[in-house]
């Protein structure tokens, strides 16, 4: 186990009391406990308050566009599949703007760990509805309340039989650390949806609101039982389950490539002899 201090301590641009302040140390702890030194991990983030999180710790980082963290992560991981890659962003970025990539990433099953700070709102753009906002959630952009049915990322991930689907809560640090560590250790695509209070723009889903509803799934819960996982993923409202909701063991995407068996692409030389052979096919 590494010392958490190696990930540094930085000033942030978040509002005082924001749930993100609970997630940042949990991520550092999970990295330390997973023995990943700063240079041994690459973060890929999008745009939003959550997406700033990896700027506030020591690690490699590609902070890309709003909604596009997953495809960048996919490319980065395929170029060097010996480097752990963590995708970190908000609910709007991950499930709204990047919704198509979310579906494709689950199906592809590249070995990525996706951490979504789910505050059920667009924080950075000052409080519009997000795909996970509850029906009736009132904002300046949705003055009569949200009409659309909320996107349930866990149910979608379970429906697509993602390799690892978990929910955590920013207010339950040890559990959150455990979820991130398990996601990092699990091969293939791993989602941790993290319930994160936004104190500035979500006055409904507050710390207290989540605290009163969240419960940790018991040890007897079997995350490999798909029908049960489907039901559990749909549980929302009075009671909200936390924990590993579903686990699968499909082969990670990168394991299918013959050319990636020996070493990652980034270390492979270009063979002139093989190129010569290739050209011969065109004669």
């Amino acid at each position, binding site marked *: 186990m590494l010392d958490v201090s190696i990930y540094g301590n930085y000033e942030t641009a978040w509002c005082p009391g924001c749930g993100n302040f609970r997630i940042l140390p949990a991520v550092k702890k999970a990295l330390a406990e997973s023995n990943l030194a700063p240079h041994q991990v690459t973060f890929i983030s999008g745009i939003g308050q959550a997406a700033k999180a990896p700027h506030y710790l020591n690690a490699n980082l590609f*902070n890309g566009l709003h909604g*596009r963290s997953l495809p960048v992560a996919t*490319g980065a991981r395929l*170029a060097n599949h010996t480097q752990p890659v963590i995708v970190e962003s908000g609910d709007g970025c991950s499930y709204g703007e990047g919704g198509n*990539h979310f579906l494709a990433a689950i199906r592809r099953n590249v070995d990525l760990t996706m951490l979504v700070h789910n505050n059920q709102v667009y924080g950075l753009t000052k409080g519009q509805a997000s795909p996970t906002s509850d029906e009736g959630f009132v904002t300046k952009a949705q003055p009569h309340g949200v009409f659309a049915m909320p996107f349930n990322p866990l149910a979608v991930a379970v429906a697509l039989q993602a390799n690892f689907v978990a929910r955590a809560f920013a207010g339950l640090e040890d559990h959150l650390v455990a979820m991130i560590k398990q996601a990092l250790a699990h091969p293939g695509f791993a989602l941790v949806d993290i319930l994160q209070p936004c104190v500035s723009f979500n006055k409904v889903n507050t710390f207290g609101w989540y605290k009163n509803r969240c419960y940790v799934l018991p040890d007897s819960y079997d995350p490999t039982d798909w029908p049960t996982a489907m039901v559990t993923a749909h549980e929302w409202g009075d009671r909200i389950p936390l924990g590993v909701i579903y686990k699968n063991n499909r082969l990670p995407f990168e394991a299918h490539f013959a050319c990636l068996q020996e070493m990652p692409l980034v270390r492979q030389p270009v063979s002139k002899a093989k190129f010569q052979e290739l050209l011969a096919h065109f004669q």
Partner: protein
Amino acid sequence: MGRQDVTLLIGGEAGQGLVTIAMILTKALVRSGYYIVVTQSYQSRIRGGHNTFAIRISPQEIIASRAAVDLLVALNAETIHLHQAEMSPENLILVDERFAPGHDHVLKVPFQEFASDRTVNVAYLGVLTQLLGLNDAVVFQALEDYFGAKKPEVTAANREVFAKAIQWADDQHLPDTVRLAPALSSQPRLMLNGNEAIALGAISAGLKFCAFYPMTPSTSIPLTLQAAADTMGLVVEQAEDEIAAINMAIGASYAGVPAMVATSGGGFALMVEGVSLAGMTETPVFIVVAQRPGPATGLPTRTEQGDLEFVLHAGHGEFPRAIFAPGTVEECFHLSRQALFLAEKYQTPIFLLTDQFLADSYRAVVPFDIDALDAVRVGSDPAAVPTPYRRYAFTESGVSPRLLPGLSEHLVICDSDEHTPDGHITEDLTVRQQMVDKRLRKEAGLRAEVIPPAYVGHVSPDLLLVTWGSNRGAVLEAAALLKAQGKKVAALCFSQVWPLVPGHFLDHLQSAREVVMVEGNALGQLARLIRRETGFYIPRHIRRYDGLPITPEYILEALASGAGAVR
């Protein structure tokens, strides 16, 4: 004896085996030592419609297609009807006798006498072998190679049909209207189209990653890469959309491998935010845009040069770029390499603009000198950078040492937000301005490496034809034909359209009595760009935007009719 220049056009419905006959014949021609220029024209459908595959053939080097057809191979009656007007004076039409057209030069073949529906392609090839005067063993070998390993019965059946067709042709004492003069060279050549050459050029430069979403006429680039992926060690991924494709390529490039995307106008439209991301994060990426007529879905399978201004301006904000526009299949190969080298060296998006005509145009290409084809060296030496490493350290050239994440203890931090030299998000407006200047300083390096346009012909001509990209062959040939008529003529052909360096060409424009711009679009996009960059106004234009490629004849007719004057 024999013809020095024959244009053969095979026409029929999609699904009739037209491409099979054409591909085998083209391969045999290349192996026999002929030069070829292929023009493919097809409809956006898998069955039916009317498609053509034209092969201009010569023992001499040729660089353009011709509109006039010498040998028409009509797989249906409609083909004769549609192409009769294009026939040259010395022509022949080859047709199955079941279509009985009233035409003077028609050679009717009783194909059903010696071939079934399944083997009729083989029979066509047999008759064509004799008509063109090719070596039957070469043609049959090309046929065997095309179909790959087959059951012995199938090979035997094909051989029998082929022999019968040749025998039939011999018995007819065929006219020698389209018999080719013997080929002069026996040097082995490659049969490559523009897209294959782009893919091969990229592989030779060390490309390791390509993401794409299928879109004609770009798709054969990733497909060529995919066919080579297992042997060459490439990952070629069909992305969920073009937005994902370019972001994947950027991710792969960030992690340390040369990466590309290939698409056409509509797909590129989706990539545009990613282009800007590459510019801001200073991530190398190679982007091929294979043009087809727009706007929107346009004419999916036809050709045009309508996206120069789009590609030049694509991406919000200001950042440097270079745009290549190859004029030949060889240039497709070499400029694809150059694009990957420049992308890595200047850490910015580099483009290659091609089009359907060049993408699908097969040529006979002299094999590349493999020893001279070095691969891109990705990233800087981690031991040579000061600690703490700063991904966007200010430098005189604007290029900062680029390290790769995970390959050293240095942290590599890139940001699409404006950032400090260490890669972290900032709103310090002084840093902002310094970063813009740093990124734009890279343009000086790119300008110093611009490939000047090729100038061919008289030093102070009466007529200067200017063009870019795939029209090069047509323009050079039109100029040569005019010169043969005693005209003082020259051609100026751009194979890099951005940055433009006026010192490379302004003199030429000013020394000509008349300058005529030849472009495959309706607005004269390069002419407008030249005016913007130099002030030089080109008053006369030959433009084509009906979906077909510009040919030498098209240019000569437009000049003769006085078309294209000021507008």
